[in-house]
């Protein structure tokens, strides 16, 4: 089992899918000759040529739109946003064209839009976005957000093979920070299934992306106090694994929802609302959400550190719930 970083996992998923299926191609800014701003697509142009690894002008509308058009013709484009923040520039195309093909027109639109997301790297307000909530109330997309190298590879392959447009959110903080031994053989991680990262019975932490490691840290500390925490890595935001969420809460009766995007209007609100409706009888304490502050991501390290969720914020919430 070769040891791959989260970034290697993304690169190899693209390479393997492009080798497996000639309909798959990559399109974006500096993805070819340069191999991507983070070198995510390093080597692909040499292997698959400029026809299948397309360097574009700085035009997110055109990138997403052209990918959508190609997808309708049976191709399987991967559209890269150099930073996921710039997906806002193609927002209209993605929610109004790409996402509506099935419901309105019965057209398959098999495409992936992916790019580096998330904070913790001092990227400032325009290079730290967690975009999931922007798309949750605009039906038609699938949304995934891997937190491990294994899921990064398996979910990207699943996204590429999916017949719907999939927003694939990769966390740039994890690119080179985590390495895992991944199976040599082809595998996918099904979209829509959560991963019970850690089994527990006293408290559920529902999270995804880079925050799974914050949840781990908190769970380790609590374990020392004899508290058994269940950590759910949601992995898929849309569709999401409601069953796994409700089952866990039914068991632990206490839940913290942890995400990196700002609190208000974050994806965590939806999960809290589902629990408050469908697992109400199981709740022994309020539903807590730990998230970033309701402001843009500030650039200066002390500000960003204060802004982001962390172990201590989770522990404080956990202790409150456990004492409840």
């Amino acid at each position: 089992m070769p040891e791959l970083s989260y970034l290697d996992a993304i690169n190899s998923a693209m390479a393997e899918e492009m080798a497996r299926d000639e309909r798959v191609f990559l399109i974006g800014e500096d993805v070819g000759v340069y191999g991507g701003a983070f070198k995510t697509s390093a080597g692909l142009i040499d292997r698959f040529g400029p026809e299948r690894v397309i360097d574009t002008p700085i035009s997110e509308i055109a990138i997403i739109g052209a990918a959508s058009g190609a997808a309708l013709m049976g191709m399987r484009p991967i559209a890269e946003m150099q930073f996921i923040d710039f997906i806002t520039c193609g927002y209209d195309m993605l929610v109004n064209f790409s996402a509506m093909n099935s419901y309105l027109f019965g057209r398959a639109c098999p495409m992936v839009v992916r790019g580096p997301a998330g904070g913790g790297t001092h990227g400032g307000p325009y290079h730290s976005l967690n975009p999931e909530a922007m798309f949750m109330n605009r039906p038609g997309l699938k949304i995934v957000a891997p937190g491990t190298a294994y899921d990064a590879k398996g979910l990207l392959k699943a996204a590429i093979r999916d017949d719907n447009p999939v927003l694939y959110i990769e966390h740039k903080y994890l690119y080179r920070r985590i390495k895992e031994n991944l199976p040599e053989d082809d595998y996918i991680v099904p979209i829509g299934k959560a991963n019970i990262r850690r089994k527990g019975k006293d408290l559920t932490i529902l999270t995804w992306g880079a925050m799974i490691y914050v949840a781990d840290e908190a769970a380790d500390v609590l374990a020392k106090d004899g508290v058994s925490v269940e950590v759910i890595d949601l992995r898929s935001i849309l569709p999401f694994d409601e069953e796994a969420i409700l089952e866990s809460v039914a068991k632990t009766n206490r839940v913290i929802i942890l995400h990196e995007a700002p609190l208000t209007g974050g994806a965590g609100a939806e999960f809290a609302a589902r629990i408050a409706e469908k697992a109400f009888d199981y709740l022994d304490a309020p539903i807590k959400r730990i998230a970033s502050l309701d402001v843009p991501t500030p650039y200066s390290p002390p500000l960003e550190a204060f802004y982001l969720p962390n172990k201590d914020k989770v522990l404080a919430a956990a202790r409150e719930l456990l004492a409840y």
Partner: protein
Amino acid sequence: MTDVLTTTNTHGLSNEQLLEIDYYLRLTRTLEERLVALFRQAKVIGGLYRSLGQEGESVAAAYALDYKQGDVVQPLIRNIGSILVAGAKPSDIIKQYMAKADSPTRGRELNIHFGHPARDGFIGQISMLGDMIPVMAGIALAGRMQKKTLVTLAFIGDGGSSTGAFWEGMNFASVQKLPMVVIVEDNGYAYSTPTAKQTAAKTLADKSYAFGCHGVTVDGNDVLAVYGETKRSVERARSGGGVTLLEVKTFRLKGHAEHDNQAYVPKELIEEWQRKDPLARYEKVLMELGVATQDQFAEIQQRVRREIDAATDEADRSPMPNPADAARGLYIEDGYWEER
């Protein structure tokens, strides 16, 4: 009858083809008149948009494509004529306007917003103007990757050509030298906004300089001229010559939609352009060329009326959607679209 100068070069079209064009012109106009009648009977759901005076360019341009090679045309709301040429059924269009269950979108989306580029030879726009230009570029790109010889033909309005999506799509297509023709219709207005308030460019074709693509302007109410220029542009695109921005000068003789009395349009302008009616001009030329007689035109109009009557009856008879279906088909794998 009109006295406007009209070109007589038939660009190698056979008499059958020339008459077929007339058929599509009449089919378009008659279908729209029928839609107006249905609108007045409150059988049309939502707005009704007319192409009166623009049928010529809609039909002629679409007629320059080769659907057997996989060519794809993307109409705007006023290019009914284009999709009729591409093979859309009048009954489907009427059903769309009546939001019927067996309309192509099954009542989910309106007017001529429907079609599949790989199946139908046309794809309707979405409402967000400009968005289809990048999409059509992507269709052309896919065609090239798939070693097809297809060309895509996109329509955009004087107004739509102000959108960022239009600019980005044109620029991308031009850099990629894609097999694509974009017809920008200067029909005088974008809703109430005259073209002079839409752009300070001398002509809309001048936008081609910004993309480094070919730029041409043609009389949009001269059917044969539009056919000729489109054909030339399509062949150039097919043979690797890249993108053409083809400006057609025409005029929107009705308001933006039926509710709009176009009070903001000077009467003289309307009268001037009524004299330039593309159908009258086209039929005049065909008669001058001895291609057709009044009787033949009359026959065509009878045939058209029969077809529209039949289409209307079919649409009238077809059911409204089953309410609960609204919950289905968000993701393609749910199978909703395979049914029936």
